[in-house]
């Protein structure tokens, strides 16, 4: 009884993902099932549906429900200078190499609401590289991208951001980069001078240029292994020899089909360097 119930739910999930793909071209079909299942159960309960099939019927016929679904299907947890040691390693070990290039392109893939992007722009400004860099900030969630473009964060989060920035070896004070309004911190628009925001999916879109650095953190953990290979394949194609790839602290290329195209550059921080052709 329990057994059959679980299986029905998995069938419903697969059908819902097909529906989303055919109707809206959002492709979650190869995302990691364990976390997807959990978030769709949450969606079903919190949005008040008896079954996942009922939810599917609704989202097929009501495009205005898509945003609700995306809120559950994509995980939007982020932080500025998340894992300060990652940004410290970027500053101390990667930046010296990037300095040797006259112009730079940096891709923040799966930028969510912009925290990681602003961390990099601030780091590059502090290191004197911002002027020669174009930052591409991409995501599939339009609300997250709009939030990133606005650069406005709840004032309660700023203490953590400030600590992280300091621990990452930040040179000035984070408060140099934002002004405060009513309970909010508004990041300076000059930080967006060299940023291109764009809707781009690691599942369905192609590479759009050559990058010296790609940072894609805590995005591919929501993919299954085969889909991870596709995404890492994009990064392999976007990076010339000696280009850098940074991942989240518990992500690894150890199990990747493309492992031989990269070497560990800063092992503990999951910063890789492109090798070979």
């Amino acid at each position, binding site marked *: 009884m*329990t*057994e059959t119930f*679980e299986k029905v739910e998995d069938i419903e999930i697969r059908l819902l993902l097909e529906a989303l793909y055919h109707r809206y071209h959002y492709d979650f079909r190869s995302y*990691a*099932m*364990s*976390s997807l*299942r*959990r*978030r769709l159960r949450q969606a079903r309960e919190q949005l008040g549906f008896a079954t996942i099939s009922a939810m599917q019927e609704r989202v097929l016929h009501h495009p205005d429900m898509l945003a609700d679904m995306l809120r559950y299907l994509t*995980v939007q*947890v982020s932080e500025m200078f998340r894992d300060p040691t990652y940004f410290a390693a970027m500053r101390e070990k990667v930046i010296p190499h990037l300095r040797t290039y006259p112009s730079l392109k940096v891709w923040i893939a799966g930028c969510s609401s912009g925290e990681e992007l602003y961390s990099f722009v601030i780091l590059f400004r502090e290191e004197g590289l911002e002027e020669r860099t174009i930052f591409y900030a991409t995501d599939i969630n339009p609300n997250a991208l709009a939030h990133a473009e606005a650069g406005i964060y709840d004032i309660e989060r700023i203490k953590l951001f400030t600590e992280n920035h300091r621990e990452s070896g930040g040179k000035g004070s984070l408060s140099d980069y934002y002004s405060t309004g009513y309970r909010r911190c508004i990041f300076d628009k000059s930080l967006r001078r060299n940023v291109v925001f764009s809707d781009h999916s690691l599942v369905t879109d192609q590479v759009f240029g050559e990058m010296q650095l790609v940072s894609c953190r*805590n995005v*591919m*953990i*929501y993919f*299954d*292994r085969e889909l*991870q290979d596709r995404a890492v394949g994009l990064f392999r194609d976007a990076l010339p020899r000696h280009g850098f790839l940074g991942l*989240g*602290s*518990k*992500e*690894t290329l*150890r*199990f990747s089909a493309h492992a031989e195209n990269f070497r560990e550059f800063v092992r503990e921080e999951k910063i890789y360097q492109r090798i070979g052709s």
Partner: protein
Amino acid sequence: MSDQAKGAVIIGASAGALEALTVILASLPPRYPFPIFVIVHLPPKKRSVLAEIFGRKCQLRSIEAEDKEPVEAGVIYFAPPDYHLLLEGRGQISLSNEEEVLFSRPSIDVAFESAADAWGDKLTAIVLTGANNDGAHGLAAVVRAGGKAIVQEPSGAYAQAMPQAAIRACPQAQIMTLSDISSFLQNKSQ
């Protein structure tokens, strides 16, 4: 793989975890026939040394899981701080930084629920000492999926709240002392 069919053990612990886990894990024989997943509440910003500590104390390989880590029998997998650990079917571990659940990441509930989905009646889930009520919902999910539930006898626990909450949420759970749990797991391997 034939490893996959035999079953799995998952353990959740919080305050007092180190001592309790030592009693249970240090006595397990080498080539234990099941994978063992361990979820312990840890401060999010610090590197965890649990896998190293138990690597020294145990006869089994002990590692901190990374995303899409393959699951093998006879290996102890610790959830890393600041990530939820989920079972991706019986063959892999997935990590996630979804929101905290009951102020916890890793969450014992999240891990137990996904383990129940993956392993069904082949799963043994154990709730040990702790000062909150994480694990209670997860343990009930394990039983619903046909798995076996064990709770550390609260009066012998360093912190009683977590085992007590688990017993309330999951009356079918078997209540055992640490040394009973230890012999139960050893016998399971024979």
